[in-house]
């Protein structure tokens, strides 16, 4: 039973591959019905599937493919011209074949799908076309009704099949198949022996069938007896049918056997495991680099450093190469996804009565398997959308002076660390105003939002769930679901969508997707004492802005970024960081782009770019909003990875908080309504000096608090009872002098920007230097005039002149 399962698995994998190819070839064939080579190829594919399924007793599938074969065989012999109608029937039968294969995969049996309708249509095509000159008398017409009864005997099937060919061909086909199987089997056995018992390599099989040898993993040693194979080649040979199929395709076409690609199938799990191991290695490498840096610093100039440096750089180089190599093994050409579109477009054009041509380029561009699997659905929706809403009816196109048939261009290319898939159509384009009106109607946006929307933002409306411009729901689209799926899926892949459109000219959609998901480039940012990693794929740019550039619009912080208005949110508000606001003059803004939305994330510091490995945080902490996972940094610490998708959502929620952040700024910088709101501490051990200062400042009407030495001043500050705007500090004091006080104060983030003004009789240059070093902003030497002191204080606390 196990053996059967194994064979079945191989059969399924192979058949799915073949069917996919069939789809593609048939569409090609339709545009060039005369291409005999192509036709032969298609026939052989159908034949292979039929043969394999009959061996495995999938009667329904055999039955269906058999009739397909009839039609194709006739076409091959020029007895039948492939018209679009015939093609429809053939394509329909391929669809049936696919669903049969799916059923087999799920249930190990092909029961439950009715093929008789399709079979009779096929028969009609192959038999009913009596008008077509029949060169050789083929008994198809008579036979067809007989086989409509299901559960035909296998052997009969085989015979009937070959009956439909001419005698020579049958001979040749049988001959070839047999040879193929024998060779395959020999090769397989040989490989087993070679692997298991290390039998010395014998000269390659003196067989006339070269392609078989080429397809086999090792040269087939001749001495292995082919005899036992022949009696029952069926169960053993069939799993290898794929190379056989390839070989068959190659042989008659007289193609060089060397062209057959040498590949092996590997379980994806093994590759995943390999990727995990590489991940560990990358982390270790990061750590090594960090240690190397530390060592370098400590033992500068030592000789062994040179050597260490070399080793570290080799290790890091090889690790990077290794990572790329393993990543490549997981890469698939995007053509795997693209090749189902010609068929789709064909079906759509017939359904919608439009003329559409599909141009595909860059199908060799490769990307990670997991992404290839995810990208299919969004592309289907986008292309359907282009066909249905983008491309106009032929007569409309002609009226507009365009060519009758529309063109959809599907293009893939690499751009840096990402792959770009571009879908262009030359249809009617998106009308921003119309989109806005529709959205208003459906209540997706408010009037105010609509007014503030740029054209580009309006284009993104098509991604809103429930949005549809179609007046009626058609088979193809109009439910307002598809584009929402596109957005969700692309965002899941950390991708970005960019739409460009011009009314009457066409629409261009760009999907920018990172190459892989397991190891990513990230931007490390700091907020207070914490660090977070933001996937670089979602980072558009970083900018440093001064706080004046942050505006508040409707309770949201925003900034102007060139021509756009960008919403801002502080990372601390999202991740509940206790923010002892330092109110520095500048803010770093990381501009995040996701799908078509943008957001500015304010951070305290930008640390740099690093390669990180995504690790899950286990079930216990799964699904924490805003956190996509964690990574281990070079120093062994854990850094959380920002989930940009969730963050964008959360940013909407912190609307109020974004403004409260502004309030916080206001509070800390003390929005003053009267002069006495300003609080200034005077620190001096001499009562007289304190008095002089008090006298100088009292006319301003500010609140003054006195401390007689550094320690006392620090205690007052720590108590948090008062929020000081500035401190006047004497240098020479008992217990704690002015310098130490300043140094202590600057240790607190909260007071980093509290202006400290030294008031002292020390006038030496070195004293001034020390003052600056300890964090004093001004240095006033005694004696001073009251006005001077007052003006210095006013300047440092931004005293509002209207209070004077």
């Amino acid at each position, binding site marked *: 039973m196990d053996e059967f399962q194994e064979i079945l698995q191989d059969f399924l994998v192979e058949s799915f591959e073949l069917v996919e190819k069939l789809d593609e070839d048939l569409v090609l064939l339709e545009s060039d019905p005369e291409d005999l080579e192509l036709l032969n190829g298609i026939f052989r594919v159908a034949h292979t599937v039929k043969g394999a399924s009959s061996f495995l007793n999938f009667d329904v599938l055999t039955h269906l493919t058999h009739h397909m074969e009839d039609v194709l065989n006739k076409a091959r012999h020029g007895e039948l011209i492939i018209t679009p109608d015939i093609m429809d029937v053939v394509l329909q039968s391929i669809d049936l074949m696919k669903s049969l294969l799916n059923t087999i995969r799920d249930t190990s049996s092909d029961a439950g799908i009715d093929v008789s309708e399709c079979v009779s249509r096929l028969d009609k095509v192959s038999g009913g076309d009596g008008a077509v000159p029949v060169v050789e008398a083929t008994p198809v017409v008579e036979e067809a009704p007989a086989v409509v009864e299901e559960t035909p005997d296998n052997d009969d099937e085989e015979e009937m099949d070959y009956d439909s060919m001419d005698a020579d061909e049958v001979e040749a086909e049988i001959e070839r198949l047999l040879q193929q199987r024998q060779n395959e089997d020999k090769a397989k056995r040989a490989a087993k022996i070679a692997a298991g018992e290390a039998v010395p390599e014998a000269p390659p099989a003196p067989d006339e069938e070269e392609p078989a040898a080429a397809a086999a993993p090792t040269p087939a040693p001749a001495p292995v007896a082919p005899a036992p194979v022949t009696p029952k080649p069926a169960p053993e040979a069939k799993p290898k049918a794929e190379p056989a199929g390839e070989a068959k395709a190659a042989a008659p076409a007289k193609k060089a056997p060397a062209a057959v690609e040498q590949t092996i199938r590997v379980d994806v799990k093994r590759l995943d495991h390999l990727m995990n191991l590489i991940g*560990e290695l990358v*982390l270790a490498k990061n750590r090594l680099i960090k240690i190397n840096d530390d060592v370098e610093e400590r033992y500068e100039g030592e000789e062994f450093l040179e050597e260490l440096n070399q080793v570290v750089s080799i290790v890091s180089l090889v690790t990077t190469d290794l990572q790329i190599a393993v990543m490549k093994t997981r890469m698939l050409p995007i053509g795997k996804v693209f090749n189902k579109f010609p068929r789709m477009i064909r079906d759509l054009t017939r359904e919608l009565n439009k003329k559409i041509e599909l141009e595909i380029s860059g199908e060799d561009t490769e990307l990670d398997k997991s992404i290839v699997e995810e990208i299919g659905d969004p592309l289907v929706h986008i292309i359907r959308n282009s066909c249905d809403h983008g491309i106009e009816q032929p007569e409309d196109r002609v009226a507009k002076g365009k060519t009758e048939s529309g063109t959809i261009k599907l293009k893939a290319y690499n751009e840096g660390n990402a792959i770009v898939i571009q879908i262009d159509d030359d249809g009617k384009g998106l009308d921003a105003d119309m989109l806005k009106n529709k959205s208003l109607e459906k209540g997706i946006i408010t009037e105010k939002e609509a007014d503030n929307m740029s054209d580009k933002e309006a284009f993104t409306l098509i991604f809103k769930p429930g949005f549809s411009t179609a007046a009626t729901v058609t088979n193809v689209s109009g439910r307002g679901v598809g584009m929402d799926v596109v957005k969700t899926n692309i965002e899941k892949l950390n991708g970005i969508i960019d739409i460009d459109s011009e009314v009457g000219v066409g629409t261009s959609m760009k999907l920018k997707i990172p190459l892989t998901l397991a190891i990513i480039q990230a931007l490390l940012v700091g907020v207070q004492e*914490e660090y977070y990693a933001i996937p670089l794929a979602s980072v558009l740019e970083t900018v440093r802005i001064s706080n004046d550039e942050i505006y508040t619009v409707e309770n949201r912080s925003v900034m102007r970024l060139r021509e756009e208005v960008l919403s801002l949110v502080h990372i601390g508000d*999202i*991740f*509940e*960081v206790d923010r002892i606001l330092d109110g520095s003059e500048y803010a770093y803004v990381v501009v995040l782009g996701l799908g078509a939305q943008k957001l500015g994330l304010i951070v305290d510091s930008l640390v740099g770019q690093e390669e990180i490995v995504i*690790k*899950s*945080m*286990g*079930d*216990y*902490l*799964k699904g*924490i*909003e*805003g*956190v996509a*996972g*964690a990574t*281990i940094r070079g120093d*062994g*610490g*854990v*850094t*959380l990875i920002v989930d940009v998708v969730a963050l964008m959502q959360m940013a909407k929620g912190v609307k109020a908080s974004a403004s409260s952040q502004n309030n916080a700024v206001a509070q800390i910088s003390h929005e003053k309504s009267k002069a006495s709101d300003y609080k200034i501490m005077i620190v001096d051990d001499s009562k007289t000096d304190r008095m002089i200062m008090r006298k100088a400042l009292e006319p301003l009407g500010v609140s003054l608090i006195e401390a007689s030495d550094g320690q006392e001043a620090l205690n007052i500050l720590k108590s948090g009872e008062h929020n000081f705007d500035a401190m006047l500090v004497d240098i020479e004091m008992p217990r704690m002098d002015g310098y130490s006080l300043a140094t202590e104060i600057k240790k607190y983030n909260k007071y980093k920007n509290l202006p400290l003004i030294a008031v002292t009789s020390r006038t030496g240059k070195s004293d001034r230097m020390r003052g600056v070093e300890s964090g004093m902003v001004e240095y006033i030497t005694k004696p001073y005039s009251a006005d001077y002191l007052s003006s210095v204080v006013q300047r440092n606390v931004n005293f509002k002149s209207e209070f004077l």
Partner: protein
Amino acid sequence: MSDKLKQIINKQSEQKDVGLDQSEDIVQLVGFIIGEEEYAVPILTIQEIIKPINWTRVPQTPPYVRGVFNLRGSVIPLIDLRIKFGLGAKNHNDETRFFVLKQGDEVAGFVIDRLTMALRIKKSDIGPPPDTLISDDSMIEGVGKQDGRILTILKVNKLLARDF
């Protein structure tokens, strides 16, 4: 040499047998202190016990989830049992330990105040939790008595279950 080895192996297997015989009515636990009380968990659920290391805070979690830490390449949640048991946080000291518990695929680290000892306790000495505390949500597996001490035996699966 091989004789000696055999002897040792035999001896060990004998011991093992003895151990197995007893395992039916003996439970091996590791005791630890949180606040004033002594608690215990089955020894086999403990992956390791380590001294406190740095951890990273995780936002959007209850206060008793301290964050995550790096245990030889794995990212593991850190849960403070003091806070979870409503005792308020305490600074870590020389006796503080991280208990790494594992059951199935679930792994988590727990902050405890102090380790006491590994102990063997007869099953018959373990009583059910007080009636007032019996419920499906209870984290208490039972109450063990030994030499006048009372140990609260905790349910590891409940400790490892996310409850927020």
